[in-house]
C-alpha cells in the first residue's frame, strides 16, 4: 500500500491506533469550564484592554491540530518507520561483484559513491555474502572474493584516480570471475562516462543484465572536462567538453601559473545542446606563456584541468625576407606563407619597412626564432649577431631561394652545393618528388606525411659524413629537404626549398605548419634556455601529477616516466601531470585533444539503475519522536500563552496605548494649536508661559530664582522662602533684589540669575540632557546653584540614601560638576556677610557641600581659579526655603526643627551669605588676609 512511498513500517499494526485520533479529537475539544462570575467595578479602568482579552470558549483549532499531530507522530513512531527501505533484491544469494568507476568521472560525487558502495557492502555483510571489489581505474588484477569486512577496508583504500577507467582491460578477469561464480550479483557504481572503447565491457554486462544479476548505481553525468589547450595568436584557447546537454551550460575557465596563482578568467557557454564549447583567455603573451594550468572554476576533477608545458608557450619569431616587399601581391611574398603558418602558435615580428638593419633590429626584440627567407649575402657584423643569437639558444630557420643559392656563409647546417636541382622541369626527366617518411631521429618524427606535397626544385647539400644525421626530412630519393644542426645552445634549421610556392607546394600544406610548429617548439622561450641534443629521445619522469580531484601531488609509485614524444591520454602508469624538468617539461593531460566525453547509454543495458546519492534504509523513529516532543513543547507554550502566563501578548497590549498616543501626537502636531501646545513641555506640571524677555529688559534687576519643580507645595514654599530672603536682603544689605521668580530650567534662560535655588522632589522626571548641559553652562558661567534635598530630617547617619538624595544623584550623574567637600569651617561662604558656623535651614543636621578648594600652596595661598573662586554648586539638605519662608505678615510659615530659638535668623543669615557669596566672589576671601595686608602696609 505504501510501495509508492520510500517508507516502510516494522510494526505496521500499530498504525491501527490512528483510527483512535477522531475520538481523541472529541476529548480534546471539551469546552473549558464556565468561568466564575465576579462583579468588579474597577473593570472600567481596564476597558480599553477588554477587546484583546477574549478567552476562546473552545480549544482553538490550531491547538487541536497540534495535539493531534503529536498523537499521530507518536503512533507513527511506535510503528517503527524506515525511510528508504531496502528494495526486494530478488533471490540474490551468491557473492557480489562490486565494480567501481574511480576515474576522474566520479570526482564530483566521490564521497556519495563511496557511501553507496559501503552501504551495498553493509547490505551484503548483513546477508552474509562474500564480496569482490574492482576499481575499474586501477590496474587489472586477480578478482578475489573476500569477507565483507575485508572488502570494506579495500573499498576505503580505493582512491579516486585522475585518469579515465580502462574498463575493457578488466574484462578478462571479470569473465574469469563470473565463470567461477556464476551466481554472483554484479553491482556497477558507474560514472556514466565513456572515454576509451567500452564496447566489450558493456556487452558482457548486458549478458549479466539479461540474467537479472546486474544493478547499476549511476547519476546523470555532469562532469565537465578541458582539452586541447592552445596558445593561439592573441589568446589562450581551450575546449570545454560536457557529456550531456543536461549538464552545466556556462562556467569559467581559470588560468594559473606554475605556483598556482590565478592569471585570468574566461567564460564559456555551451550553445544549445552542444557538447563542446571553447574558452578564450585574452592575455599578453608573457602572461600566456606563464600559464601552466587551466581549470574549470568549481570543478574538482582531473579532467577539468588542462596542463600546459613548454610546447604550448608562444615563441616570438622574426621573419626577414631578402625579396622586396610587395604588399600589393602578398601571395608572392615568401614571408606570407611562413607568417600564416606560424601565426597560430607564435608571435610574428617583421622589420619595419625600410629598415637599414632589419636582422639586427629583430634580434634586439628578444626573438626565439629567426626566419631568414632567401637571404643571400650577410655582412660580417650581422653574421656575428646571428651567431651569438644561436649560441645563446636561438633557432635560425633559413629558407632557400635564388639568392641563397648564390651566397656563401656558414649559417647553414650543411654545406650547400652551388646551383639548385630542378625536378620535373622542362629539361628534366625526373618528376617532382614526394617527401619520405620522417626517421626516428628527426624532430618531425610523429608528423604524418602529406602525400600531395611535391618538391620541384631544391638546393642540394654537399655530401658529408654526417649529412644523414643532420637530415630532418628528405625526399623519396634521399636528398635532404630539411636539415638541421645544433650550434651552441641554439640550432640552425634549413629548408632547402623556398618559403613561397615557387619551388614546392610545401608551404600550401598542413605539413608545413606542423613542421614549422615543431621547429619553433625546439626553441626555448628565450635564447638562454638550453635543450640537450639527446633530450629528444630521452624519457621524462613525473615531477608533479594530479590526483583524482585535479590537485597537484607528488607522483605515486605507479607513475612511470614517459617518452618525450608521448602524446596519449593519461593512464594509470602515466597519470596526468607535469613530467620532466622545469625548462623542458611535458604535460600529460587526462584527455587527448581528440577526445570527447560520451555518456554511456546505461538504460540500454536493461539493468535497474539506482541513484548514487541516496542513503539506504534510514530509521526515522528518533526524528519522529523529537518532532513529537517539539510539538509538545509548542503545545505547552501555546497553553501558557492562552492562559495568560506568557508575557508576549501582554507586552504587545501595553505597547498599543503608547502607539495610539504617539499616533495622536503625530496627528495633533498637524494642527497649529496642538503644535503650540506641544511646544510647551508636556508631563511637567508647570504650564506657565516662558518668562518674557522684555520683563528682564525692563527690570534689569538682580533677582533670585528658584526652579519650578511641578509640585505646588514645594514651589509655593520656594517662592515664599525667596520672598522672605528678599525682605531680609533688602533690609540688611545693600542689595535690593527684585521679586523672586520661578524658572523652568527646561526652557527659561538662566543667565540672568546669580543664584538658582533648586529644591529636589523625589519622583519628578530627571531633567532632559539639554537642560543639564544648560545648567552646566550656567555653573561654568559663574552661576550658583543651590540644590536642596530637604531631607535632613529623614536622612539617618549611615542609613540609606533618601529618595530625594537618590533623585539628586541621578540628576548629577550626567552633570559635569567639580569635586565636592563638606563646607569647611573657614570657607569664604561662612564670612561673606555674617560670620557663621554652619548653614542651617528648617533643619540643622544636614551637611552642606561645596566645591572642594584647591590645596593651599606652601606660602599659604590658594591658586586662583575660574569663576572667581566661587563654588558653582552648593548642596544642602536643610530645607533652606522653608526656613526663609515668611507669610503675609512676616511670620514664619513652617516651624523649624532645631532647638536653637535663633535658628530662623541663622538660616536667613546663611541665605544672605549665600547671595553675597554668589555676588561678590572671592572679595571676602581677600578680607581673610586683611591682618597680613595691614602688617605689610605698616612696614
Amino acid at each position: 500500500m505504501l510501495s509508492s512511498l520510500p517508507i516502510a513500517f516494522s510494526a505496521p499494526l500499530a498504525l491501527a491506533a490512528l483510527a483512535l485520533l477522531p475520538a481523541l479529537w472529541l476529548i480534546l475539544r471539551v469546552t473549558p469550564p464556565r468561568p466564575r462570575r465576579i462583579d468588579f467595578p474597577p473593570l472600567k479602568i481596564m476597558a480599553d484592554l477588554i477587546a484583546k482579552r477574549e478567552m476562546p470558549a473552545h480549544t482553538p483549532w490550531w491547538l487541536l491540530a497540534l495535539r493531534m499531530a503529536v498523537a499521530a507522530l507518536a503512533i507513527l513512531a511506535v510503528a517503527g518507520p524506515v525511510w528508504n527501505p531496502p528494495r526486494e533484491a530478488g533471490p540474490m544469494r551468491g557473492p557480489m561483484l562490486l565494480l567501481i568507476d574511480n576515474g576522474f568521472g566520479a570526482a564530483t560525487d566521490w564521497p556519495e559513491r563511496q557511501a553507496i558502495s559501503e552501504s551495498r557492502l553493509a547490505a551484503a555483510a548483513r546477508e552474509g555474502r562474500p564480496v569482490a571489489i574492482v576499481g575499474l581505474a586501477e590496474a587489472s588484477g586477480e578478482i578475489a572474493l573476500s569477507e565483507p569486512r575485508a572488502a570494506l577496508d579495500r573499498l576505503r583504500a580505493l582512491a579516486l584516480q585522475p585518469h579515465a577507467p580502462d574498463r575493457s582491460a578488466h574484462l578478462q578477469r571479470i569473465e574469469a570471475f563470473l565463470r567461477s561464480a556464476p551466481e554472483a550479483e554484479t553491482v556497477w557504481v558507474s560514472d556514466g562516462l565513456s572515454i576509451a572503447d567500452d564496447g566489450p565491457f558493456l556487452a558482457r554486462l548486458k549478458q549479466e543484465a539479461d540474467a537479472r544479476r546486474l544493478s547499476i548505481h549511476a547519476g546523470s553525468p555532469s562532469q565537465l572536462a578541458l582539452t586541447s589547450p592552445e596558445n593561439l595568436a592573441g589568446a589562450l584557447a581551450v575546449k570545454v567538453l560536457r557529456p550531456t546537454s543536461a549538464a552545466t551550460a556556462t562556467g569559467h575557465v581559470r588560468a594559473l601559473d606554475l605556483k598556482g596563482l590565478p592569471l585570468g578568467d574566461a567564460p564559456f557557454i555551451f550553445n544549445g545542446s552542444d557538447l563542446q564549447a571553447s574558452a578564450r583567455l585574452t592575455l599578453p603573451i608573457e602572461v600566456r606563456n606563464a600559464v601552466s594550468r587551466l581549470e574549470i572554476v568549481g570543478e574538482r576533477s582531473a579532467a577539468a584541468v588542462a596542463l600546459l608545458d613548454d610546447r604550448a608557450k608562444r615563441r616570438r619569431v622574426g621573419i626577414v625576407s631578402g625579396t622586396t616587399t610587395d604588399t600589393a601581391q602578398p601571395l608572392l611574398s615568401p614571408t606570407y606563407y611562413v607568417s600564416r603558418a606560424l601565426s597560430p602558435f607564435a608571435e610574428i615580428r617583421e622589420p619595419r619597412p625600410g629598415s637599414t638593419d632589419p636582422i639586427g633590429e629583430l634580434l634586439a626584440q628578444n626573438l626565439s626564432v629567426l626566419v631568414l627567407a632567401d637571404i643571400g649575402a650577410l655582412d660580417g657584423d650581422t653574421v656575428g649577431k646571428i651567431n651569438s643569437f644561436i649560441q645563446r639558444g636561438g633557432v635560425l630557420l633559413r629558407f632557400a631561394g635564388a639568392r641563397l643559392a648564390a651566397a656563401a656563409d656558414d649559417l647553414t647546417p650543411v654545406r650547400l652545393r652551388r646551383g639548385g636541382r630542378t625536378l620535373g622541369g622542362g629539361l628534366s626527366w625526373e618528376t617532382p618528388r614526394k617527401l619520405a617518411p620522417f626517421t626516428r631521429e628527426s624532430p618531425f618524427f610523429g608528423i604524418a606525411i602529406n602525400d600531395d606535397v611535391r618538391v620541384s626544385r631544391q638546393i642540394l647539400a654537399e655530401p658529408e659524413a654526417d649529412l644523414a644525421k643532420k637530415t630532418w626530412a628528405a625526399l623519396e630519393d634521399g636528398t635532404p629537404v630539411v636539415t638541421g644542426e645544433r650550434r651552441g645552445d641554439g640550432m640552425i634549421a634549413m629548408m632547402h626549398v623556398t618559403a613561397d610556392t615557387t619551388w614546392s607546394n610545401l608551404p600550401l600544406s598542413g605539413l608545413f605548419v606542423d613542421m614549422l610548429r615543431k621547429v619553433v617548439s625546439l626553441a626555448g622561450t628565450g635564447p638562454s634556455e638550453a635543450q640537450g641534443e639527446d633530450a629528444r629521445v630521452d624519457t621524462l619522469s613525473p615531477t608533479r601529477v594530479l590526483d583524482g580531484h585535479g590537485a597537484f601531488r607528488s607522483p605515486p609509485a605507479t607513475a612511470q616516466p614517459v617518452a618525450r614524444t608521448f602524446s596519449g591520454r593519461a593512464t594509470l602508469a602515466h597519470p596526468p601531470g607535469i613530467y620532466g624538468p622545469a625548462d623542458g617539461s611535458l604535460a600529460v593531460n587526462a584527455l587527448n585533444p581528440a577526445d570527447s566525453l560520451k555518456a554511456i547509454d546505461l538504460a540500454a543495458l536493461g539493468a535497474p539503475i539506482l541513484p548514487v546519492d541516496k542513503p539506504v534504509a534510514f530509521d526515522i523513529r528518533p526524528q519522529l519522536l523529537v518532532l513529537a516532543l517539539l510539538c509538545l513543547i509548542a503545545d505547552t507554550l501555546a497553553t501558557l500563552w492562552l492562559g495568560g502566563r506568557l508575557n508576549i501578548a501582554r507586552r504587545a497590549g501595553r505597547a498599543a496605548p503608547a502607539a495610539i498616543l504617539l499616533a495622536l501626537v503625530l496627528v495633533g502636531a498637524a494642527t497649529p494649536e496642538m503644535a503650540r501646545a506641544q511646544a510647551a513641555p508636556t508631563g511637567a506640571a508647570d504650564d506657565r508661559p516662558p518668562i518674557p524677555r522684555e520683563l528682564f529688559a525692563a527690570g534689569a534687576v538682580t533677582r533670585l530664582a528658584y526652579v519650578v519643580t511641578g509640585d505646588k507645595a514645594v514651589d509655593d514654599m520656594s517662592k515664599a522662602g525667596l520672598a522672605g530672603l528678599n525682605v531680609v536682603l533688602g533690609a540688611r544689605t545693600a542689595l535690593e533684589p527684585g521679586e523672586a521668580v520661578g524658572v523652568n530650567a527646561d526652557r527659561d534662560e538662566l543667565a540672568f540669575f546669580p543664584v538658582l535655588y533648586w529644591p529636589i522632589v523625589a519622583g519628578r522626571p530627571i531633567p532632559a540632557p539639554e537642560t543639564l548641559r544648560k545648567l552646566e553652562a550656567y555653573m561654568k558661567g559663574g552661576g550658583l546653584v543651590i540644590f536642596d534635598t530637604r531631607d535632613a530630617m529623614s536622612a539617618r547617619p549611615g542609613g540609606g540614601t533618601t529618595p530625594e538624595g537618590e533623585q539628586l544623584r541621578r540628576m548629577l550623574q550626567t552633570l559635569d560638576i567639580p569635586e565636592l567637600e563638606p563646607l569647611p569651617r573657614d570657607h569664604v561662604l561662612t564670612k561673606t556677610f555674617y560670620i557663621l558656623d554652619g548653614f542651617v535651614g528648617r533643619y540643622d543636621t544636614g551637611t552642606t557641600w561645596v566645591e572642594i578648594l584647591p590645596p593651599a600652596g606652601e606660602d599659604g595661598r590658594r591658586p586662583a581659579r575660574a569663576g572667581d573662586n566661587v563654588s558653582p554648586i552648593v548642596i544642602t539638605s536643610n530645607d533652606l526655603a522653608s526656613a526663609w519662608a515668611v507669610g503675609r505678615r512676616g511670620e514664619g510659615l513652617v516651624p523649624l526643627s532645631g532647638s536653637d530659638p535663633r535658628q530662623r535668623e541663622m538660616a536667613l543669615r546663611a541665605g544672605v551669605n549665600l547671595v553675597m557669596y554668589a555676588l561678590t566672589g572671592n572679595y571676602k576671601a581677600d578680607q581673610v588676609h586683611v591682618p597680613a595686608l595691614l602688617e605689610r602696609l605698616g612696614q
Partner: protein
Amino acid sequence: MLRMRVLGTSERQPARPVLTASLDLAARLPRLILEARRVSASVHGIHGRRRAGPGETFWQYRPLVTGESASRIDWRRSARDGHLFVREREWEASHAIWLWIDRSASMGFASSLALASKVDRALIAGFALAETLVEGGERVGHLGLTRALASRRIVETLAQAILVDAKGAEADLPPDAPLPRLADAIIITDGLSPAASLAKRIATMASSGARGHVLLIADPIEETFPFTGQAELFDLEDGLSLRVGDAGSWGLEYRQRLEAHRDAIKEACRKVGWTLTLHRTDRPASEGVLRIASLIAASRGPGR
C-alpha cells in the same frame, strides 16, 4: 471563598444607620485640631474674615515692609509723614467647604473582606466631616445640591438633599464647575472613572485656586484582586464584561494598571496642590476621616 455584594440604587442612599454612624464618628473626632486652627488663624472672632485681605472696605494702614512692591504704597497716607504706608482692605471672600460624595453604581459594592460597602463608607465619612467642620465653625455644602451651611443639622440636611437627588446617584464625577478661590473641596469617590476625566474635573475645580482633598474609597479586593483561575468579570456601570483565562496573571496586570491610575490621580492632585488620601473599606472609617480633617486643618495654616 470571597463574596461580593452589590447594592441597588435605593440602597445607595443615606439611611438612618448611616446618619447615626456618621454622627457617632463625628462625635469621636478630636476637636483639638480645629480648635487649635481657629485660635491661631483668627484672632478676631469665630470666622477669620476680619483681617487684611482682598476686599472692598478699608481695613488698616500698615508700614511698608522692605522688599515689598512699591506699587502697594499708599502715597496719600505716606505723604503725611516720613513713613511709607500700605493701605489694606478687609478680607471679604466667602470661605466654604464643599463636599461631594460619589454615589454611582460602582460605589455600591462590598466584598466579604470589607467592613462596609463603599458608598456607606463614603457617606459616613462625608457626613462625619461635615458635622465636624460645622462644629469647627466652617460652612459646609454638598456640591450641586446645597449651599454652604453652618447649620447644626448639617448631616440631616445633606442626607435629605442626597435622598431627593436621583440624578446624582449615577454621576461618578463631581460637577464640572470652578470653586471659589478660598473654598475647600472634599471629594469622596472611588476614583474608578477614567483618570483623565477626573483630573480634568479637579483641574477645573481648582482653577481659581481652591484647595481640595480627595478621599479615595476602595474595597480590599479592588486593591488586591485575590482571584485565580478562569473568571468572568462584570462592570456595574457600563455593562462591560470580560472573560479572563487566568485571573491570577490578569490580576498582576490589573494591579499595575490600578497603580498607574492612582498615580495619574495623584499627579492631578499634586499639580493643583490638592491632597489625596486612600481609604480601604476594611479599615475603620475614622482613619480616613481623621486624616482628611487634619489635612484641612493643616491647609488652613498660616499663609492664607
